[in-house]
């Protein structure tokens, strides 16, 4: 009882309960460990194609999901494993898709960048940079048309923000007051190109000003700030006031994809972010110093996560490969 009342408080931007804080910790840790394992499996040649890890950015999607409501929808780019896990999709199905197995969310035919779950409100997983933005705007249009009170969280990168279709979408979303929160994950780089080198005007949260879309910059390495600002943005959209832009200042620790020349930033820069701003370490310290839980409890969580990731890894290696006949399915509905 008390828990759900407080949970409602958290969604509207109030303080999180101890249980909720531990959930954030758990969810971020799950993404971190899952991604570390995915990186290993890639190294072993078990994952084909591309694999973009979310390590370092966990607080963004976990904070937003903490503020979201059941029935809200999510769409993002190819750096999507974290979003899927945060939406409640099964780690086994995600990992098995990475390894291209039948038990994966796309029957092993889509891979890292192309997974979907209608039940969990996750609409992909898109490999074309920026193209998810009009799609996300359309998801928001559907919420608006149905008047179902739900909001779409449309994630995009600091590189994607310079694609023209983003502004075509902003205009429509503002014109029709669509319930969409555009979440820019500013991890400072688009592949090897820094925001400074790609963008005229680096305050990306202001990119909606011409359309009257409010925007805010958020410390994306702090799950509590993300949740709080996220809740306010979602409330704005839910109340029919139209879209909102959040610029999450974050950082990816790993290379862009699994091959990365790493010539565009220094090792020191990466090390400094990891040491001083890590979202998981930061929440862990908060938990311990505010006595939200003790070391033993956090150890339990560690163990629980380890088990989930091991089970997912095992499943992803044991699930059978797709049958060759699958090559011809799901192209058009068979007559």
């Amino acid at each position, binding site marked *: 009882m008390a828990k759900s009342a407080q949970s409602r408080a958290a969604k509207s931007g109030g303080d999180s309960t101890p249980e909720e804080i531990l959930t954030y910790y758990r969810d971020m840790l799950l993404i971190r460990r899952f991604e570390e394992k995915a990186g290993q499996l890639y190294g072993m040649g078990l994952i084909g194609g591309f694999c973009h890890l979310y390590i370092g950015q966990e607080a963004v999607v976990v904070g937003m999901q903490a503020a979201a409501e059941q029935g809200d929808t999510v769409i993002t780019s190819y750096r999507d494993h974290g979003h899927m896990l945060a939406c409640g999709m099964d780690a086994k199905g995600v990992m098995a898709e990475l390894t291209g197995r039948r038990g994966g969310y796309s029957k092993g035919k889509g891979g890292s960048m192309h997974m979907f779950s209608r039940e969990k409100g996750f609409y992909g997983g898109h490999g074309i940079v920026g193209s998810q933005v009009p799609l996300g705007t359309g998801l928001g249009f559907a919420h608006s048309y149905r008047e179902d009170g739900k909001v779409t969280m449309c994630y995009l990168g600091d590189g994607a923000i310079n694609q023209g279709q983003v502004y075509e979408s902003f205009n429509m979303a503002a014109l029709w007051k669509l319930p969409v929160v555009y979440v820019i994950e500013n991890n400072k780089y688009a592949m090897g190109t820094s925001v400074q080198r790609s963008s005229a005007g680096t305050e990306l949260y202001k990119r909606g000003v011409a359309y009257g879309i409010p925007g805010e910059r958020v410390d994306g390495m702090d799950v509590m700030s993300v949740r709080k600002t996220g809740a306010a943005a979602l409330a704005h959209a839910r109340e029919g006031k139209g879209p909102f832009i959040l610029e999450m200042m974050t950082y990816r620790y790993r290379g862009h994809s699994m091959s990365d020349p790493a010539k565009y930033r220094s090792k020191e820069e990466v090390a400094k972010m990891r040491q001083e701003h890590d979202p998981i370490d930061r929440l862990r310290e908060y938990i311990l110093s505010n006595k939200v839980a003790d070391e033993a409890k956090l150890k339990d969580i560690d163990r629980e996560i380890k088990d989930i990731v091991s089970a997912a890894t095992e499943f992803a290696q044991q699930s059978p490969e797709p049958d060759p006949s*699958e090559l011809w399915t799901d192209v058009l509905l068979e007559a």
Partner: protein
Amino acid sequence: MSEITLVQAINRALTRAMRDDPTVVVLGEDVAKDGGVFRATEGLLAEFGEGRVIDTPLAEGAIAGLCVGLAAQGFRPVAEIQFTGFIYPIIDQMMNHASRIRTRTRGRLTCPMVLRSPCGGGIRAVEHHSESPEAIFAHMPGLRVVIPSSPARAYGLLLAAIHDPDPVVFLEPTRLYRAIKEEVPDDGASLPLDRAFVVREGSDLTLVTWGAMLKETMATGERLAAGGVSAEVIDLATLKPLDSETVLRSVAKTGRCVIIHEAPRTAGFGAEVAARIAEHGLLSLLAPIERVAGFDTVMPLLRLEQHYMPEEQRILAAARRVLAFR
């Protein structure tokens, strides 16, 4: 002199073109500081500076449109699109502007731009990173479409594309980037952009292909030779304008033809080649033409990729059917 890969040959041609002609500029996402996803533009920034080697923001449509504007002012822009899956917004600029500037201005303006992009599968990547959209571009009047299949041809054809006064879509088979090495003298000599290459001479059967499939097609030729069949292999290299003469001459000699491509079968460029033979060489045919192509589906993830790609066995089976036809 040492042997180089196809991607090194591209780099060599770009370097040579930029040294020889100050109007050549290179632009695209991550082409300058990173030297491109496949390092095709490595070293260009250091030699030619930021003015001529430009990292662009993520905006494919504008990159292509910008090239049209630059070209209209007498520059020779060479744009890199990281993978052909990202080229689709550019179709607007290529179809509506690049390919029509000459016609629309009755020759007062031209568009000497080159659009480079790695294409094709076999690299264990799904969809966007493994596409073969050559037929889409070949359908546009006013464009040249070129696909090299060896380091030497990549060098000579890219130089020709850059020198050419009209827009060229230059598709580079990703799978071949580092697969073969050969000597490529940096002599600045370009190859003709309207000529197919007979890469293996034969008298019993004509195998027509382009790009990465040349590898499997040549292997099939060898295999047939072991069984006493003499196959002629043609690398089209330039799809548009198509050198049908070389194909027709070969078919007149062999009477039998198999066309091999990786792109989906329906309305693939193989259909155009088959139609040319039907129009102008029907009476020299001794057997129906066969096409060995990708399926009418999307390039799948790694575990099914091998079933998608037209491998040697499929080419060989088609060749045997065509040879057996009486």
